[in-house]
């Protein structure tokens, strides 16, 4: 008994578990001492929670692109963060134009719909182009080849957009009805956060519906299950892959506009952090698994928004929100080390590299 136990646990495992325990201990100690200090009132926590949920919704829409592509091609589409950037970075010109003509304040819903449409179409188009030019020729290449291609494509796209629209930042004009807020029992609820959350949930329902209840969604699931068998059943695999990329792009394009409702500044490198966090969320939920991506996104959104104050203040770290990006990365590292399959994922860690 003891011998098998000893054989199974190598020094590496001990080391890993020590790290894990240390981090868990830090989180618990930090949380307890933060709460005991009572520096933040209850309504601040609720504010942060709502913000985290809204952010999680945006991550979920971006994470869809990662998780669907991974499900079908078993590759990390690293350039997805640039697809996310392309939408809002292009649509900002529409938004500025509409705002200048006064249309956006008069007809905010139509205006917003127009901006969403532009953003989603640009992102969809780019995702399809990317698949056609960069990934299709590499479908049977060794695993690292498409990943390196994706990294290259990511940088290429970033700097193409920098070349096209300039290296400066553009601000999305504020929409009047979205700047209001309501007070509910001491909590400020901002209209933009509500709209972002609701929009994200609506979009998630639509996406889930497409995947679960339409014919093409069924084909997508079949392809992700077994490409060869799906092809034998008469499914046009190329078309399904293109559709998947397109759907992921559209979702990221919508997510991009929702993101600008929270952070209204766009620039060519805006995709990197949301992209990597959405990827983290997808991994957290179990990559390849659509509901998992939603779940992971909300958890990550909450961790990022509540986490720095909750875990780090108690440890005496000044300005903890500076470290919020590090929290996301630490979550990513930990989840990949301890549970690479994610919360809802199947066992895929045994796949060969």
């Amino acid at each position, binding site marked *: 008994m003891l011998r098998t136990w000893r054989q199974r646990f*190598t020094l*590496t495992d001990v*080391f*890993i578990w020590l*790290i894990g325990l240390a981090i868990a201990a830090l989180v618990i100690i930090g949380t307890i001492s933060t709460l005991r200090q009572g520096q933040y009132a209850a309504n601040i926590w609720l504010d942060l929670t709502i913000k985290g949920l809204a952010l999680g919704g945006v991550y979920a829409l971006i994470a869809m692109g990662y998780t669907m592509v991974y499900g079908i091609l078993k*590759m*990390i589409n690293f350039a997805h963060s640039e697809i996310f950037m392309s939408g809002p970075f292009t649509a900002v*010109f529409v938004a500025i134009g509409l705002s200048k003509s006064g249309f956006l304040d008069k007809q905010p819903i139509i205006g917003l719909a127009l901006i969403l449409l532009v953003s989603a179409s640009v992102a969809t188009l780019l995702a399809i182009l990317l698949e056609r030019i*960069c990934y299709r*020729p*590499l479908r049977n*290449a060794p*695993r*690292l*080849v*498409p*990943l*390196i*291609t994706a*990294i*290259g*494509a*990511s*940088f*290429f*796209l*970033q*700097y*193409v957009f*920098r*070349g*096209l*629209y*300039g290296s400066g930042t553009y601000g999305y004009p504020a929409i009047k009805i979205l700047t209001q807020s309501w007070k509910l029992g001491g909590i400020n609820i901002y209209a933009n956060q509500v709209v972002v959350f609701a929009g994200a949930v609506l979009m998630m329902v639509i996406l889930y519906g497409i995947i679960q209840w339409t014919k093409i969604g069924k084909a997508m699931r079949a392809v992700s299950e077994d490409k060869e068998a799906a092809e034998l059943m008469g499914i046009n695999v190329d078309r399904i892959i293109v559709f998947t990329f397109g759907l992921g792009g559209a979702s990221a394009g919508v997510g991009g506009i929702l993101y600008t409702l929270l952070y209204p500044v766009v620039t060519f490198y805006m995709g*990197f952090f949301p992209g*990597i966090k959405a*990827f*983290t969320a997808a*991994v957290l939920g179990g990559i390849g698994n659509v509901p998992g991506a939603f779940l992971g996104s909300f958890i990550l959104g909450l961790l990022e928004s509540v986490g720095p104050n909750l875990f780090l203040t108690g440890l005496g*770290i*000044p*300005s903890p929100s*500076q*470290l919020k*990006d*590090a929290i996301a*990365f*630490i979550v*990513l*590292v930990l989840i*990949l*080390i301890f549970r*690479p399959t994610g919360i809802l994922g199947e066992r895929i*860690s045994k*796949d*060969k*590299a």
Partner: protein
Amino acid sequence: MKTNSSHWVKTVQNGLIGGAIALLLGLIGMILAFGKSYIISGVFTMAQVFLLFPFMFEGYTSARQASSKNALTLLLTGGLAGLLGGVVLAAVTAIAQVVNLRAVLINASPDLFALMTFHMALVPGLLVLLLAALVAGILGAAVLLVSERIRGALTQAILYVVLIGLFRDLIVTVITHWGFVKYIFMWMFAQNGLSIPGAIFLFIAVGGLLYWRMGRQKKAAAPKRTTRQQRIFRWGTWAFIALFALLLPQILGSYFSEILDNVGIYILMGLGLNIVVGFAGLLDLGYVAFYAIGAYTLAILTTSESVGILHLSFWVAAPIALVVAVFAGVVLGLPILRLRGDYLAIVTLGFGEIIRIVVLSDWLKPLLGGSEGVQRIVQPAIGSFILDNQQKLYYLILAGILLAGFVATRLKDSHLGRSWMALREDEDVAEAMGINKVATKLLAFGMGALFSGLGGALFATKIGSVYPQSFSFIVSINILSLIIIGGLGSIPGVFVGGLALVGLPLLLSQFADFRYLIYGAVLVIMMLQRPEGLAPEARRRLELHEDEAGPAVEEKPQPAATDSGH
């Protein structure tokens, strides 16, 4: 590649793609940036090369895809592809006269369209553009009609003219140091670019030489040398390279030495990353983390500022920095090395970013200086001789490169190197053969961290200060790009990649703006077209082109080698 669509449909597609590429080059500002870079003074600029090359390329591609080998059909195909590309550009130029594209696309400026219409009035300008596109397409197709010998000589001669014209300023700066020798060359250069006679001379000289050499190669294979002669020849080459490397800063002067130092540090780190990615197949995107750790450790140990501790000399601090970097590599490596390839990439990326964010935060500011970084790092001294300028530091970096190069070369065919390659090809089989997966991978990772740390330490010494901003993700991508362009696993490839990807943008300021764009494009194009790189490792090349028939391998390097200048 044969498809069912007729070749004219393909030609139309190619033409439109060529137009789109030229348009993109224009709209991202690349054409405009080279608007004043004359290749041949007063005649031809680099901008025109960028403008017309896509048409020529698409003309060439279309003609190659044509099933008929009839000369007229080929020329017609090329011409059509070129013309269609020209139509795309002309259409956009015409639209831009009516609609203000510049409100969105910042580079769609009148200057750009003036360049596209060759500084003429709109209508004649557009006609000239179309004509130029047509001619470019036809020329592209015509390349197929001449014999391979002429084609090789011609394309390389053009390449040399373009490169020498482009680097006119640098070449002139260097040769003015050479005393009376400069008069042999100076007449070839004008105020900007090559002079017309210079360009003609260069074209004929290079073209003729290559034509002659290719003919000779065909007739008689290289004369057999005896082993003794071979050995003498090899030692002679090495001695020459060594002498050249030692004298390089003196030949180039202090400005170029600084660039040389930068290139050197990247080559050093490339050699290290090449072990991790090229030999062991572990895609490490957080390579910058160890670079940062090496740099910061050295900075903290040697600086005379308040954050400094111990105030050691470079020679004591550098080994400590290396130990710390390797330790960090092992600590990070242990938990993550059993992850699958693409997850490993993302985790290392995350780790690199964590380091940067943490260093930048207020939390560790008392220890690491936060966003203000650490300044006043002491310079290394040997006795009373202080390595205080770029020319002297060059030797330190050269020593680092020699060490890294030596270690990498020796390890490559060692037991360990073979274990790495076995793991790279198939982990399960390698493990079944008795290779200790974790220990072997950890050695690769630690080795990479060692050279990255060394690079960081040298970087900190060279700059004299460290800032968290210097250690962003882009550095990792930079190093990855340079080992990929040179060929994964290939040691000479690291030098080729370093010179091309780090040296070029530093030498030519017009390229600097497009540096990362070019990196991205290089990664994509290399992966799609030549995954083995420009200076490939022999085995890797054979592996990656297994499915192609023998002659295809022979043929392939020719066009790609001429493409590489762009």
